[in-house]
C-alpha cells in the first residue's frame, strides 16, 4: 500500500528552481512545481507573470538560465538522441492558436506526427486519424485546411494532433483564449472528458478563471516569476492571501492609481484644449 502511494506520488513532471531572463528582464525567479500522475494542474497568472516563458522552458523551446525540468526523471534540457525522442513522444502540446501546419490538411497534420514516430502503414494511420478527430468532435474535417476552420475547431484539431501519439502528459496553452464563451465552454468540456475517460495528465496554462475552476484539480498561481501559491482548487479559492484574492476576485492592479493618472491626463488635455481655444479666439 505504501509503495503504491509512493508510485502515485511520483511526479510525471518536476520543475526545480527554474530561472530565465529574456533580455535584461528576469521573467522566472526560481519556479518549483510538480505535476502528479492523472491530475490536471492549472497554471494561472496575469499577463507578464511568466506563464508562456515557463511553458516554453518546460517544452525545451527555451534554455533556462538555471534549474531543471524533469520528465519522469529525464532532464528535458540535457536529453539528447533517443532519450529526447522519448520525452517528445510522451508529451502532447496544444498551442494557443493551434499551430497547425497551414500548408497541410487537418488529416495530414496528424499524419505528420504519426509518420514521424510510428511505423504504422498508411491505412492504419488514417484509421487512427479518424478516431482522434472524432474524439475531439471533428469527424469529417479530415480534408479541410486549417484556414477553413473556425477558431474553436482549430483548437480541437490542435488537441487531436497533440493526442495523436497518446501522450502521457498533455500541455494546453490558453485553450479558451480568443473564443466566445460558448465555444470556450465546449473546449473545457472536451478537456474534462479527456481527463475522465482517458485519465490524461494535463497542464493547462490559462488566465481564464472559469475554465480553471471547471478543469483543475490543482491550481498554481504564477506571480512575478514565482509560484505564489499552489494547491487544490478549493483550497486556493478559500485562500486569504492578498495576491491570490486579487487575482481570483478579478481586481485590477493598483486600480486607483491608474484612475487618478487618467484623471490627470484628461485634465491636462482639457487644459490644453481650453488654452488652444483661447488662442484661436484671440
Amino acid at each position: 500500500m505504501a509503495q503504491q502511494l509512493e508510485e502515485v506520488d511520483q511526479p510525471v513532471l518536476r520543475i526545480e528552481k527554474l530561472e530565465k531572463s529574456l533580455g535584461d528582464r528576469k521573467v522566472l525567479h526560481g519556479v518549483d512545481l510538480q505535476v502528479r500522475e492523472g491530475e490536471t494542474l492549472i497554471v494561472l497568472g496575469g499577463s507578464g507573470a511568466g506563464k508562456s516563458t515557463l511553458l516554453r522552458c518546460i517544452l525545451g523551446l527555451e534554455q533556462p538560465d538555471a534549474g531543471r525540468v524533469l520528465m519522469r526523471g529525464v532532464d528535458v534540457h540535457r536529453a539528447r538522441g533517443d532519450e529526447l525522442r522519448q520525452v517528445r513522444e510522451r508529451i502532447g502540446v496544444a498551442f494557443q492558436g493551434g499551430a497547425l501546419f497551414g500548408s497541410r490538411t487537418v488529416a495530414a497534420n496528424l499524419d505528420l506526427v504519426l509518420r514521424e514516430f510510428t511505423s504504422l502503414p498508411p491505412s492504419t494511420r488514417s484509421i487512427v486519424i479518424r478516431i482522434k478527430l472524432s474524439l475531439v468532435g471533428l469527424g469529417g474535417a479530415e480534408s479541410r485546411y486549417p484556414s477553413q476552420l473556425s477558431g474553436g475547431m482549430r483548437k480541437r484539431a490542435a488537441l487531436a494532433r497533440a493526442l495523436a501519439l497518446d501522450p502521457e502528459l498533455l500541455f494546453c496553452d490558453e485553450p479558451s483564449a480568443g473564443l466566445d464563451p460558448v465555444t470556450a465552454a465546449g473546449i473545457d468540456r472536451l478537456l474534462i472528458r479527456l481527463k475522465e475517460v482517458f485519465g490524461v495528465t494535463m497542464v493547462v496554462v490559462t488566465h481564464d478563471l472559469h475554465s480553471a475552476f471547471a478543469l483543475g484539480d490543482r491550481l498554481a498561481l504564477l506571480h512575478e516569476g514565482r509560484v505564489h501559491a499552489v494547491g487544490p482548487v478549493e483550497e486556493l479559492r478559500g485562500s486569504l492571501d492578498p495576491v491570490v484574492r486579487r487575482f481570483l476576485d478579478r481586481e485590477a492592479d493598483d486600480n486607483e492609481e491608474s484612475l487618478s493618472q487618467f484623471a490627470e491626463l484628461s485634465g491636462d488635455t482639457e487644459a490644453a484644449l481650453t488654452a488652444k481655444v483661447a488662442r484661436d479666439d484671440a
Partner: protein
Amino acid sequence: MNGAIPGALARGGGWALDALDLVGSLARLGWSALQSLGRSLARLQPLRWREIVRQMLEAGNRSLPLVGLISALIGMILALQSAYQLRQFGATDLVANLVAISVTRELAPLLAAIVVAGRVGSAIAAELGTMRVNEEIDALTVIGIDPVSFLVVPRILGLLVTLPCLTAFADALGILGGFLVATFGLGMAPLPYLRASLDALVLEDIFGGLLKAACFALVLGLVGCQRGLSVRGGPEQVGRATTSAVVTSILLVILVDLGVTAILYVR
C-alpha cells in the same frame, strides 16, 4: 557641424555590426543545414524528397515566365547597345560574341537570381515568418521534427536545382533576344550570327554562369530562411522580414557575383 561626425560614425559602426551579425547568423544556419544534410545522407534521418521536389517546382513555376521575358528583353537591349558602340569600329560582327558571352557569364545568372529573390526568396521569408508567428516552428520542435531539416534544407536544395535551370533557360532566351534584334532590327545575316554566337561560347562560360547560379541559390535560400525564422513578435514583422530578405539577398548576390567573377575569370 562637429557633432555630425560621431553620429555618422555611430551609424557606420551600427551598419558594420549589423552586417557582421547577418553574416554570423547566415553562417550558423548554413552550418546547421549542412549538418542536417549530412545526417540525412548518413540515413540517420529522412531526406524529405517530396518537399524538395515541391520546392523546386514552386520556385520554377513562380519565376520561369518572368525570367524568360526579362532575359529576352535584356538580350535585345544588349544587341542594340553593343551594335551602336561596335559600329564605330566597324565591328558589328562582334555583337553576337558580346551578347552570348555577357549573357551566359553574367546577365543570365544575375537576372535569374534577382527575379528569384523577388519571387521565391520573399515567399520563403514570408512563409517561414508566418509559421514562426503561428507557433508552427515551435510545434515542429516539440513534435521532434528538426525545423532545419524539415524547412530549410528542402528549400535550399530546391533552389540549388532550380536556379541553375532557370539560368540555362535565361541563357537561351537572352541569346535568342539578341538574335532577333540583330537579324530583324540590324539586318545581320541570321546563320552567321548564330554560328558566331556558338563559336564565341566555350563551355567554361556556360558552366561558370551555372556555378554562379548555384552560389546565388545558396545565398537566396539562406537569406530567405534566416529572415523568416528570425521573425519575432507579430504578423507586422513578417512583412518587414520579407522586404529585408529581398534587399539583403540582392545585395549579397551582387557581392558574391563580384567574388566569383574575380575567382573564375581573372587570371
